[in-house]
């Protein structure tokens, strides 16, 4: 009895270790399913596809820790992508167009935060609205057209290799992980984020600047989305209004799989990164193993449910 609960206790303190175990098991299974899977080339190439989701998931982790949610990230990605593409097509030099795109991304996030903090509206409702609004603007402003005649150097962000085989965006992702991790675990700002998620009322009375923190994290995810949009646009060499559709669900799945509680108050960057990688490996591995993409959706859905169930189960046994 005591040995069993003891084992359970140790398990609950290392949710990330459990995820790591799942990841390793997944890699072994995938390697058995397809000889192509466990090659350095494939593993590095897989990262091309998860960096965009990963960058957004970093920001989403902070938002979910505060008990919020952002459904508008996929639409914001589309908006930034066309902002870059179409200002460039209209004659703006590309570096300035990229800068403009970053500003648009942050502004979109700030827009969300204004509704959430000053009108005290539920983030779910606000970002449901901006989910439609941003997507609609990206669509309407461009007349559903696409831009794709970017200069060759633009490909650097999404298609370049560094040191021989490492995709360029992987380095950006690693840098972002380190920065967000430092902010969340080593600064008072990071403590505020957890405090708000645990008990917003108590945090307010303890003098946590709740509005400022929320404005910062929703604007911050806007910046991460904008960086993801630059990488995405560069990778596919096209800016179009309907990119990023459904990405928000991938992002939220990754964060929740990583152990963040949707009720707020808990979650880690390490967990999120593992969640992102597990989903990416699952998708890539199943693809290489010749499993039809129809199964992928099903497996992803079931995996998400199982992960959250286990998470909540352990969390309850902690209490």
């Amino acid at each position: 009895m005591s040995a069993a609960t003891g084992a359970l206790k140790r398990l609950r303190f290392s949710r990330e270790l459990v995820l790591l175990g799942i990841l390793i098991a997944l890699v072994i299974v995938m390697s058995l399913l397809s000889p192509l899977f466990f090659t350095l080339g494939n593993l590095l190439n897989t990262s091309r596809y998860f960096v965009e989701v990963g960058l957004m998931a970093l920001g989403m982790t902070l938002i979910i820790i505060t008990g919020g949610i952002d459904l508008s990230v996929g639409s914001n990605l589309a908006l930034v992508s066309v902002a870059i593409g179409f200002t460039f097509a209209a004659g703006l030099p590309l570096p300035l167009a990229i800068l403009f795109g970053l500003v648009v991304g942050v502004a979109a996030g700030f827009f969300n935060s204004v509704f959430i903090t000053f009108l005290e509206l539920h983030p779910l409702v606000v970002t449901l609205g901006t989910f439609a609004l941003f997507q609609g603007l990206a669509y309407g402003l461009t007349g559903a057209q696409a831009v794709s005649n970017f200069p060759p150097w633009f490909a650097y962000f999404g298609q370049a290799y560094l040191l021989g085989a490492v995709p360029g965006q992987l380095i950006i992702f690693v840098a972002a992980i380190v920065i967000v991790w430092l902010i969340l675990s080593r600064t008072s700002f990071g403590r505020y984020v957890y405090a708000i998620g645990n008990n917003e009322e108590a945090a307010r009375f303890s003098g946590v600047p709740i509005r400022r923190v929320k404005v910062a994290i929703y604007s911050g995810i806007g910046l991460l989305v904008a960086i993801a949009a630059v990488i995405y646009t560069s990778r596919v060499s096209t800016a179009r209004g309907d990119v990023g559709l459904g990405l928000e669900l991938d992002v939220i799945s990754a964060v929740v799989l990583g152990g963040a509680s949707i009720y707020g108050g808990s979650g880690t960057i390490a967990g999120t990164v593992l969640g992102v990688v597990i989903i990416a490996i699952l998708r890539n591995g199943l693809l290489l193993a010749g499993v039809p993409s129809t199964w992928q959706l099903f497996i992803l859905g079931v995996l998400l449910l199982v992960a959250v169930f286990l998470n909540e189960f352990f969390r309850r046994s902690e209490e």
Partner: protein
Amino acid sequence: MTSEAGTHAAKAEGGTRFRRVLGRPETPALAFLILLVVAFSVLSDTFLSVTNLESILISVAVLGVIALAVNQVVLCGEIDISTGSMLGLCAVAGGAVATSVGGFVLPLLAAVAVGALCGAINGTLVTLGRIPSIIVTLGMLYALRGVILLVTGGTWITALPNDSRVLGMGNVLGLSVPVMILLGLFLVMEVVGRHSTWGRNVYAVGGNRRAARFAGLPTDRVRFLAFVLVGVFVGVASMIYMGRAGSVQTNTGTGLELQVVAAVVIGGTSISGGRGSSLASLTGAILIGVILNGLVLVGVPGIWQQAVLGALILLAVTTDVVRRRLLGDAA
């Protein structure tokens, strides 16, 4: 509790009555709806015709029927974003039965049964599994779409017999069947919400779950039934959809889940539960239909629809905040 406010207002003097009307959850959306109908009538000659108004109601029948049920889930303080995939799966089940045996009764039963089963899975995971409903239904959104692709193998269901399409295409006594279903279910939900034990419990559970539990209400059963109701209504809606479309594609219902939540919220039901009405969700759905229809008639290109819908959601919830502050946060 605000939904009952009107009944006591009879003898109240003007100012209080005004506050009561203002305090009802659906008031801003209704006012906005009337304003829009007037505006579009002025801007377009064809808008205010019986045929056009009926076609608006037909176009929002699927959305409206599902919104009526999701409204109950939201009133409980939960959310259901699996309805898009669920609609697809119900339509596949109904379509398969329709092509093999025909008629509309058996396909309807099949669709409703599949829907109720999906709803029961959602409800079980939320209540017994204690997983947050947004995660449960997000997972189901993926999983059910996967099931659709698995059972259909990616092929469409076509050549539906005409007698199976009655719920989407039929006419009884000059009124189209989808509109009758929508209005009929609305009346049922209004009665359920006002006079049935479950309907009152939904408000209690959404208003304060802890208090409801301490008062001895079966909070888990109330929420479970709300999720099952969504499944049943989605099943009915899928037959309307199938009847109108004449075929079932594997991407049926994609993106519908957010429109449904939008309709509920635009109508004035609070996303945090406990406050709202069936009239609110119906108003929200019709409002969306009127706007999409009106924009086309006024000549706004279809690509702007999404943006307008988004702006509308933000406008609606902002109006709600302003109204609550006018009432001193009392309502």
